């Protein structure tokens, strides 16, 4: 008498039993793929804000998406796929920043020769020329998706090198010391670049979101 394992039907049944599992796996992979694709545009915009180079931005995003597809299981348990992908993208962006630095060193002095941006806010005895408006509690505004569209537009309007430094600080959330090391800036140089970036963003948001001026 033939054993169970010698009978071809046995394997046919096993194969049939596996179909739903296989199907489940494939659909979840396709689903993941689609979700990742839908994120691509926004990831690209942010990678570009940071890198200011189309090729580097596309490479960084592609690498991040592939990293997730190669190990879909490591995403399990994360609160949000977007946050997970964003975390990976940040590492890829830092890699590309280093590569870009070797090719085209960053020269922050070129962006902002004008000190009037700061000076124009104050009169000669150091008082503000006009009263900064009260923006109120952040939380209600931060629930409005349109606010983030305006913020993104304001980030896009920053001078390119200022944007790169600001994004390293506030989006990659690197600390000042790391940024200085990466970019070869002095600390006080960095603080001024960030201060200017914040003044510009403040002005842009004030005008385009809070409706002042």
């Amino acid at each position, binding site marked *: 008498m033939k054993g169970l394992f010698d009978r071809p039907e046995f394997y046919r049944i096993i194969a049939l039993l596996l179909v739903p599992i296989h199907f489940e796996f494939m659909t979840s992979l396709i689903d993941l793929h689609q979700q990742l694709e839908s994120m691509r545009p926004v990831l690209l915009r942010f990678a570009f804000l940071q890198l200011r180079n189309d090729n580097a931005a596309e490479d960084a995003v592609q690498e991040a998406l592939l990293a997730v597809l190669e190990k879909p299981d490591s995403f399990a348990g994360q609160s949000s796929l977007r946050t997970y992908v964003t975390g990976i993208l940040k590492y890829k962006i830092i890699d590309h920043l280093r590569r870009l630095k070797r090719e085209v060193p960053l020269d922050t002095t070129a962006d902002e020769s004008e000190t009037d941006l700061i000076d124009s806010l*104050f009169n000669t005895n150091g008082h503000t020329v006009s009263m*900064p408006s009260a923006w109120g509690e*952040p939380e209600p505004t931060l629930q409005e*998706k349109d606010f*983030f569209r305006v913020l*993104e537009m304001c980030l896009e309007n920053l001078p390119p090198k200022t944007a790169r430094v600001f994004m390293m600080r*506030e989006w990659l959330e690197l600390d000042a010391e790391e940024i200085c090391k990466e970019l070869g800036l002095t600390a006080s140089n960095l603080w001024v670049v960030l*201060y200017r970036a914040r003044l510009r963003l403040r002005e842009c948001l004030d005008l385009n979101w809070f409706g002042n001026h």
Partner: protein
Amino acid sequence: MQFFLYSCKQAHRMISEGLDRPLRLSERARLKMHLSICNACTNFNGQMQFLRKAMHRVSQDPDSTNQPPAKPEQR
């Protein structure tokens, strides 16, 4: 009085620098004193904290533009 208090120009700068480095005790004290009597710089401080919070939100989820942030995935 000039010795103890920042001008608005100095205070603005310290508010921004405070986002990038820990301020020294003397800087913190002078800034606090200035903020306690100056609405302009208090508003500016609010704007800067607002901006920091907004950027942190975008940093966690760049697609805050499309959906409310950080909802657990439904599977």
